[in-house]
């Protein structure tokens, strides 16, 4: 089955679709998408350093889908939509894994030096808004994140 149109962003109607990446939820795919995320962030008006931070945030969100979302269930599909908004960039990350309970996604405490719980902390530190929604038609999850230009990262 082939999609001939982009996902429609629910939250920011004026957002312009720049790139949509479809890939299997598998750790070795992330290196394929990082440079495209960076180039897209640059096209949305971010400097190199901030674009690199956005890459990290999106990468971490993809990792969470791979490790926690599909996890033991094996591989599924991830769809990463990147949009240029008036404010900066809108990222929409769709999976078809069991519903995430957003209250259970807790970034670690600041002074907690332990391996783990870093990913969601990075995401919240880097992005301006982070919102878990149920996927369209009740299937899977839709993580919407935005980052605005003109702010120090």
């Amino acid at each position, binding site marked *: 089955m082939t999609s001939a149109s982009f996902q429609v962003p629910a939250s920011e109607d004026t957002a312009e679709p720049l790139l949509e990446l479809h890939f299997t939820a598998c750790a070795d795919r992330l290196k394929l998408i990082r440079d495209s995320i960076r180039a897209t962030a640059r096209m949305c008006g971010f400097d190199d350093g901030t674009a690199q931070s956005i890459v990290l945030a999106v990468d971490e969100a993809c990792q969470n889908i791979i490790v926690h979302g599909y996890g033991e269930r094996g591989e599924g599909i991830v769809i990463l939509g990147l949009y240029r908004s008036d404010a900066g960039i809108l990222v929409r990350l769709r999976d078809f894994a069991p519903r995430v309970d957003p209250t259970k996604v807790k970034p670690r405490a600041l002074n907690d030096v332990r*391996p*783990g719980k*870093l*990913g969601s902390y*990075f995401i919240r530190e880097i992005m301006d808004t982070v919102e878990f929604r149920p996927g369209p038609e009740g299937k899977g999850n839709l993580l919407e994140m935005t980052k605005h230009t003109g702010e120090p990262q």
Partner: protein
Amino acid sequence: MSKSDKPQQEPSVVRLAGSVDLEHAPDVRKMLLDAVALGRNVLVDLSAASYIDSSGIACLIEALQKARSAGADLGLVAVSIQAMRVLELARLDMVFPIHDDIAAATAADA
């Protein structure tokens, strides 16, 4: 670096190249823990590491903690701008000893 127990011993150097990420975390973890198991101080050379994420950082933290509980230390060498940004984001830039290069690290240790 901790000078206490083994001031006479050369540190073990682990060189991480490419992406220190989810894909490579199992290998990275093993390399680091193997180095820590030698009982000497460990220097992690990041000069060829192009990208590091939370999985890579988690490996470094685990190895640091194992090293310290064994009376040794683990330092980072040639940290790139991207890696330093990630360490700062994690508030770990003051937790790891960080050196410009191996020579500086060895001098600091002596």
